[in-house]
């Protein structure tokens, strides 16, 4: 209802004030003609005005003051009213209901009027689409444009985030001088990497070997245990003797693993940056890569890693006698084996150990000089000597045409040639002058903005004939499905003018989705759609859940999370993103969001959820039974933790999540000045037990009841899952005090589990009667209800989310009928995810032009 509130205030403004682009259809003369003069008024008067009248205006909706829809007044409000009537949400269940005939007459009238308004509006309303690239899009575009993967987002101001909303909209993707300043810094540093100097640079090398000394007693000196890190073992890292500022590096490692019985895979990860063999959680490191070792020490394997040195943080040199020493950098291999028992005490020799014989570092890698990313810009040509001016022009034209995602115009090229000529005398060399010139092309609006503009000259003849811009569509497709610029194939199709053909779109969408670059689409989309990020900072109560996170067991940092390694929360994030990616890959039905016959897990997650027989850190689809109490998004740890308190589940958060993310409702935030739900989801499991009672109390206040009656029932079935997302149908009896883990009383963790079981004797209260629905008891029944009765809403919600993300703006009443058509079509074809995406990309709303 966020939207609703803002629109109401616009109504107030309408008297004499320019109301902005959103409402230009509603001219002031129309809004002065009121709803009470419209045909549908008798219906509203008898069924709605009691609550939504002048005095009582629940939900901040006052019908008598509403503009007349047939004259274009308050269209968005009318669109919401139509939603409420169609879904049956209004009038509320406990009020007298209109006859079906009256209801459908009212619905028909509003709908037909809306349709007229949408048609009228389409003639002169063009939604704002110009918006800057998001940071992720920016980084990916630079990667694909330059052919080197540089981590640039760290240097940019953080993008705004709004719960359950996508940030790639014109409203949020704003630009100020600071942002452009940063873009220029990024562009310059990227160009410094992309264009190299003619002479080959110095190559830096470091090599280190480790011997198996001491293996008979404990971990050998060439080994890395799960916990263990003997001084001077590989776990201590390899300091680099020197490294360049830019360039590609190569790391080679000879490695193997010693496995205990029953284990046959060990994830070995390399990180690089600061040394981490200090008692500090604030060292800066970046992962280089992960391999899975399956070979024994008799059969060592040489593994090669590559990357860009620019992406790793060098540790600033220490100051000695007033002078700063050289920066340093270390490579640290890590044993990431995790079977869920990391907090159970050190048993290094019973766990798999990685063996590292030697490690080599080399940078920059010179296989060809100058490297490909250089010659892609400063291409080999005799022109360079024969006609330097023409060479420069061609270099610029080629680069800028790729950067702008369409052919550059002669004027644009000329302007950058001017810049080149301006900077050449001072900078001296072609390389230096070109770096500076092209850096500026990367801060020009043609590069930084998504727009539907393209100068006529950039269009080919078939575009001119049809008015369809192929380049624009190429960018729309690639930014939607790759969060990056179009590749050559898309550009070629755009140049041929065939891209608007529905069958070509379909073929391209499936191709883009099959490409690994689509990961960023799924990642971005899913994270924002499901508001996933909040789970990472929920403070987990380590007394109640002593095994969930991996804690430092001794020393000054005892009890804090072990740093510098992926945590189970990271895996949970990947689980949710990977699950959605898998559904798209399989072209599976949207209903899988609610329930599926597989989950997407690795070993730590499998242990957490209680699935046996999964090894390794790689996430993969694993079949589950209904009795596993898993499947669909509702039971993902990321969702349940993110919508809990870290000590207890939180039915309100979970209800809001379900309604926003899955059913597509807009849930109003709690209003100002309401009393907080008193000490509800509590400090201990003890107080969490009475959440049902607390909510009942809360609902007794009328101001709270209106919202909570619609909310609480959706959250209560989730009570079967605890604060860390595990199925927990039995809980301690009300009033029983739950003790946290105490070493003296419970001895070990198994003892604590026994204790918890011994006091957990009551079935958790997870029963609720859904608004306008049946009573459900627990998640299973909630899911069944959703699958049977809310199919349409679930599909429509996903279509709306995908469309909104794809076109980079929030949908409004103007899109109502376009969405309706998509929903109908998708429904006919089984609501399969990949097909949905194809359908969206073929739609007029997405392409921005009519057939």
């Amino acid at each position: 209802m966020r939207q609703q509130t803002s629109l109401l205030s616009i109504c107030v403004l309408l008297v004499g004030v320019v109301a902005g682009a959103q409402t230009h259809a509603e001219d002031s003369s129309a809004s002065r003609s009121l709803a009470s003069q419209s045909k549908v008024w008798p219906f509203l008067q008898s069924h709605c005005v009691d609550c939504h009248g002048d005095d009582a205006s629940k939900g901040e909706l006052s019908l008598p003051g509403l503009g007349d829809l047939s004259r274009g007044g308050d269209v968005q409000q009318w669109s919401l009213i139509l939603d409420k009537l169609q879904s049956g949400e209004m009038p509320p269940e406990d009020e007298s209901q209109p006859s079906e005939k009256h209801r459908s007459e009212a619905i028909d009238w509003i709908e037909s009027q809306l349709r007229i308004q949408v048609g009228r509006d389409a003639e002169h309303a063009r939604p704002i689409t110009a918006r800057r690239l998001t940071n992720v899009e920016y980084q990916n575009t630079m990667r694909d444009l330059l052919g080197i993967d540089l981590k640039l987002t760290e240097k940019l101001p953080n993008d705004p985030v709004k719960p359950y909303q996508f940030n790639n909209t014109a409203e949020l993707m704003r630009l100020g001088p600071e942002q452009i300043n940063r873009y220029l810094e990024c562009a310059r540093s990227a160009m410094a990497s992309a264009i190299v100097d003619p002479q080959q640079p110095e190559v830096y090398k470091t090599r280190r070997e480790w011997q198996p000394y001491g293996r008979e007693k404990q971990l050998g000196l060439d080994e890395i245990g799960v916990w263990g890190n003997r001084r001077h073992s590989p776990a201590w890292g390899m300091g680099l003797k020197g490294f360049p500022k830019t360039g590609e590096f190569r790391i080679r490692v000879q490695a193997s693993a010693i496995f205990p019985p029953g284990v046959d895979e060990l994830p070995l990860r390399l990180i690089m940056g600061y040394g981490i063999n200090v008692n500090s959680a604030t060292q800066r490191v970046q992962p280089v890569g992960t391999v899975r070792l399956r070979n024994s020490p008799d059969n060592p394997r040489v593994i090669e890693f590559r990357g860009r040195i620019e992406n790793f943080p060098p540790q600033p040199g220490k100051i000695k006698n007033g002078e700063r020493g050289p920066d340093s950098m270390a490579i640290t291999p890590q044993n990431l084996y995790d079977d869920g028992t990391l907090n159970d005490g050190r048993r290094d020799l019973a766990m798999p150990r990685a063996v590292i014989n030697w490690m080599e570092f080399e940078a920059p890698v010179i296989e060809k000089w100058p490297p490909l990313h250089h010659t892609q810009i400063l291409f080999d040509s005799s022109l360079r000597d024969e006609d330097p001016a023409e060479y420069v022009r061609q270099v610029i034209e080629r680069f800028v045409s790729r950067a702008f995602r369409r052919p550059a115009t002669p004027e644009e090229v000329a302007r950058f040639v001017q810049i080149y000529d301006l900077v050449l005398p001072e900078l001296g060399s072609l390389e230096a002058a070109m770096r500076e010139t092209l850096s500026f092309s990367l801060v020009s609006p043609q590069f930084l903005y998504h727009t539907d503009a393209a100068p006529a000259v950039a269009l080919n003849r078939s575009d001119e004939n049809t008015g369809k811009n192929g380049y624009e569509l190429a960018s729309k497709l690639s930014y939607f499905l790759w969060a990056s610029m179009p590749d050559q194939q898309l550009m070629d199709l755009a140049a041929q003018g065939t891209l608007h053909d529905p069958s070509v779109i379909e073929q391209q969408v499936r191709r883009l989705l099959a490409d690994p670059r689509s990961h960023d689409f799924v990642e971005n989309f899913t994270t924002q759609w499901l508001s996933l990020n909040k789970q990472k900072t929920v403070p987990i109560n380590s007394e109640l859940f002593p095994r969930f996170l991996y804690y430092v067991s001794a020393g000054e940092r005892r009890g804090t999370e072990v740093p510098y390694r992926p945590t189970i929360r990271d895996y949970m994030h990947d689980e949710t993103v990977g699950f959605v990616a898998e559904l798209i890959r399989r072209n599976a039905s949207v209903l899988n969001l609610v329930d599926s016959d597989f989950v997407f897990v690795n070993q730590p997650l499998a242990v957490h959820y209680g699935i046996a027989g999964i090894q390794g850190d790689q996430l993969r689809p694993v079949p589950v039974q209904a009795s596993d109490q898993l499947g669909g998004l509702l039971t993902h740890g990321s969702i349940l933790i993110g919508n809990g308190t870290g000590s207890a589940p939180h039915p309100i958060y979970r209800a809001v999540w379900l309604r926003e993310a899955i059913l597509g409702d807009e849930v109003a935030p709690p209003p100002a000045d309401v009393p907080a739900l008193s000490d509800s989801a509590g400090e201990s499991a003890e107080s969490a037990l009475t959440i049902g009672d607390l909510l009942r109390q809360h609902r007794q206040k009328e101001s709270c009841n209106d919202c909570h009656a619609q909310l609480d029932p959706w959250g209560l079935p989730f009570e079967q899952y605890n604060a860390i997302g595990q199925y927990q149908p039995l809980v301690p009896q009300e009033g029983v005090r739950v003790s946290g883990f105490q070493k003296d009383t419970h001895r070990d963790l198994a003892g604590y589990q026994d204790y918890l079981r011994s006091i957990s004797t009551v079935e958790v209260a997870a029963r609720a009667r859904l608004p306008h629905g049946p009573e459900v008891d627990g998640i299973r029944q909630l899911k069944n209800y959703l699958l049977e009765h809310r199919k349409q809403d679930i599909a429509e919600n996903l279509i709306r989310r995908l469309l909104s993300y794809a076109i980079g703006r929030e949908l409004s009443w103007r899109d109502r009928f376009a969405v309706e058509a998509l929903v109908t079509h998708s429904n006919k074809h089984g609501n399969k995810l990949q097909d949905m995406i194809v359908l969206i990309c073929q739609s007029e709303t997405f392409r921005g032009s009519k057939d």
Partner: protein
Amino acid sequence: MTTKSWHLNRRDLLQGGGLGLALPLLNGMCHAERSAGAELPKRLFVSYFAYGAYMPGGKTGVPGGNQPHHDWSWWPCNEPGPLSFNQSAAPFEPLVDSVSYLRGLDHKGGWKMGGHSSGDVFATGADMTEHEKTNNISIDQVAANRHGHQTRYPSLVLGTEGGTGSYGSSKTLSHRGPGRAIPSLHKPQEIFNRLFKPYAGKGVQQVRAGLKREASILDLMLDNSHSFQRQLGRGDQVKVSEYLESIRELEKRVERTSQWTHAQLPDIDTKGLNIEVSHKEPQEYIRCMYDLIYLAFQTDSTRYATLMLESEQSQGSELWNYATYVLGYKGATHDIAHKRPEDYSGKWDRWRAEQHAYFLKRLHETPEGDGNLLDRTLVLWGSAHPHASHSTKNYPLQLAGGNRLGFRHGQLHAFEGDKKVPLANLFVSMLNAIDVPVERFADSTGNLNQLMG
């Protein structure tokens, strides 16, 4: 060092409003070597904490009933008049002559914003639910527009999460104007480098040449952008104008930066400054941010700063866990606001107070002219919620410093009559005290000059 080549920045002069400004500008010219007779700088700093503060028995921000004052209330005492200090406010006791508490003030524009959103307007007073939906200019920027040219940086905008955030969950206190939030900086290393090592190791000549080049290029970029803009639809043209404005702003900055290359960079005493600190160590981190502001003021690198100490809706960042790191509280920092556990609420406020007092003390201990830095720095510290975070009225507010700018301290002031006094009235007085002659700010109805002696 020759400072002969100093010249007035034409654009700043025009922007500032012309002749009336000639005098302070001339003062600014000789800033680098501040002579004994020259007027000392007047500074302004706004600092924000989220989720309100503990006010037992006075959940709306004004005391209720006749209970004795709570030892752990955020307010140091109950009765308006001379200050006495309870447990929460004790860190400010040594500074009693430099602090005042102001009860009953707030921004009307934030009343209806609800939830955690009213922090957006703490420094702006904008009416974001009605006619200023994209917020509006903040108090520091009003001052920076007027006098910002006198220092190397017109203002310093810091936060603990960085960026602008979105409407309703801002990560910055500063706004240049409607729709123009200024992204806050939150990485100490980066802030330090930008403040004190702006040339990144290059020589001054080299920097100057680079800037000259950049200025010419920006002109060409402006041409390029104009022709690009013409190809867009009307709505998009308006949208892209923010780009053009940004380029123009950058041109100004280039001009300004190149002027400042004639002034020597300050020598910084970095002793005890750990700029590699992270959110995992809240106290070190927050103090480092305060230290950076202190250094910026002390070196007169800027005179106006804001710091979003905590932003509302911080569930995406480590701030969410600050109370866990600091106090071992088993819950999100934000939960303290809702649950108000007796044992943690006060301690949490006290921890915040210690950090802020640390900053005030540093300013107070640094001599300047015949007083100290705090005497010429107005420091506003507070939140846009009182007790429970869903209320948007009667902010917890502390004003410190500015004794030599006319403010009298050591009092709790209560503005709790029938007629609501807008917080913006205080902003008017604060601006006037630092030589920004405004009569109105946001919804102000006058001033609060009664705080001045």
